């Protein structure tokens, strides 16, 4: 009994440093300018200034950035799912010379982040005149080593007999991948897709390297520019902008949370 309430007490106490920042972000975003700096923090806005959101939204071409982020994220995740499914299909259901080497080549890519390769990749894309294009934002992420690995693990658990039965029914090759393997691996596919959406929606580093033009800039870059301008002045507007940049991911997370926090995504990775 005591242990139980102690556990709850610690968990609740831990939520304070964790959630208070979110609350402070929300409250600040609704404050009129004169209530932002006060001697004692004002925990509730007396006159919620909803137009802060409109002011922030129009302070930079955020609509354009939002559109760019949506297009780039959707294309990256779609390409990753297609390429990873095909590669995982080959690695899990075929016997062929070089399979082990190829598998380890894919896995080893996990330890080479874009934060190492960015200068060389920047040079390559500049060479082909692709800077400031959607292609530059998408191409390096078109394949995912992580996704290939996860799907391979999931596909490998589907029993051989099922494949033989499917073939007898005239379902083989890509048909088997599409009609049997992918539906059976739905939780893994969905979990990977969600993690990829969050990663690429939030990505700040790579778009910073290859964009210098508002027509292709994404939301994190736009918010970063807004930080550069607003710091030490309009914190309320900056917090409002931070909220509408984060909101799609927070909503996605709260509606699909069981796919994010399920253990399936992590136990397969071990060893």
């Amino acid at each position, binding site marked *: 009994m005591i242990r139980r309430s102690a556990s709850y007490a610690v968990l609740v106490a831990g939520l304070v440093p964790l959630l208070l920042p979110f609350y402070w972000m929300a409250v600040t975003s609704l404050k009129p300018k004169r209530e932002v700096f006060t001697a004692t923090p004002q925990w509730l806005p007396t006159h919620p200034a909803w137009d802060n959101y409109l002011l922030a939204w129009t302070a930079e071409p955020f609509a354009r950035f939002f559109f760019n982020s949506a297009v780039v994220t959707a294309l990256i995740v779609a390409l990753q799912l297609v390429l990873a499914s095909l590669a995982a299909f080959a690695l899990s259901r075929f016997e062929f010379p070089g399979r082990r080497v190829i598998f380890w080549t894919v896995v080893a890519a996990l330890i080479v982040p874009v934060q190492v390769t960015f200068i060389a990749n920047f040079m390559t894309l500049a060479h082909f005149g692709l800077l400031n294009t959607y292609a530059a934002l998408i191409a390096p992420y078109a394949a995912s080593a992580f996704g290939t690995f996860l799907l391979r693990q999931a596909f490998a658990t589907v029993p051989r007999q099922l494949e033989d039965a499917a073939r007898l029914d005239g379902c083989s090759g890509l048909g088997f991948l599409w009609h049997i393997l992918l539906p059976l691996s739905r939780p893994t596919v969905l979990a990977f897709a969600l993690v990829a959406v969050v990663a690429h929606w939030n990505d*700040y580093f790579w778009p910073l390297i290859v964009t210098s033009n508002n027509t292709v800039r994404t939301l994190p870059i736009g918010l970063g520019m807004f930080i550069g301008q607003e710091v030490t002045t309009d914190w309320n507007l900056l917090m409002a902008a931070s909220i509408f940049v984060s909101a799609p991911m927070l909503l996605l997370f709260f509606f699909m949370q069981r796919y994010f926090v399920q253990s399936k995504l992590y136990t397969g990775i071990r060893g």
Partner: protein
Amino acid sequence: MMSPRVMAATRPYLYLAPTLAVLAAFTYFPIARLAEMSLRAPGVGTSLGPWIGLSAYAKLFANPLFWRVLGQTILFVFASVPIAMAFALGLALLLDQPLRGLGVFRVLYYTPVVMPTVAVAALALWMFNANGGVVDYFLRSLGIAPVPWLVESTWALPTLILIAVWKNVGYYMIIYLAGLQALPQAVLDAARLDGARPIVRFFTITLPLLRPTTFFIAVVALIGSFQIFDFVNLMTQGGPSNATNVLVYFAYQNGFEYLQLGMAAAISLIMFALVLLILGAVAWAFNR
């Protein structure tokens, strides 16, 4: 026309081709390219410049700032990773109990993980701000003098470590929880029946059994922490007076501000080698 047999034999390679092409072009080729760039003096244009041997490396090693940046990166990694992992394990142990309502905590503790780093940076700049920041207000109400979080050299890096821990702890917690839930229940029950005290059970049974999980998290966390860039670029620009300059930011600065692309390539390669070395050491330590 290919015969059906040849078609069948080439099929797996065909399925793998797009993934391998992307990895070759954007992951493996760049490593060779970085090596080449670091040995030449590439200009801003497309020309790679003349071969200059190891002089970029020599210049770098003779630069005291490089060593400082290297040291600060290592300090950041080896402070933020163990702290975040310790908190993560503690939370995971609390959540791995047959108690009601723990699912809610699991979700809430994970929330910072899905936040964009840019939004976290904006929020942290506001909360740790020297002018009206709410963190200093809390300190003052506890009778503690305000801290020059991001303005003074001694405090800036620890502040970034604090923010990184806040952002990542939920991610490691979920992996630890997965590890805990996969432990053989029979062994844990046997220890409980033997009357071993919880603290003894934890150190003699749970922690050793969690070794593979701890190893996995350590690898993920080390790779991820060496990449620290966003908070530095958005919050401190490496300052004050380079106190938060780290390897990725230093490479970025050399490449895109000073237009020393060869130097930037050398820094990136050194960082990559360092990460491999540390991963090797961690793998050795865990699999001894």
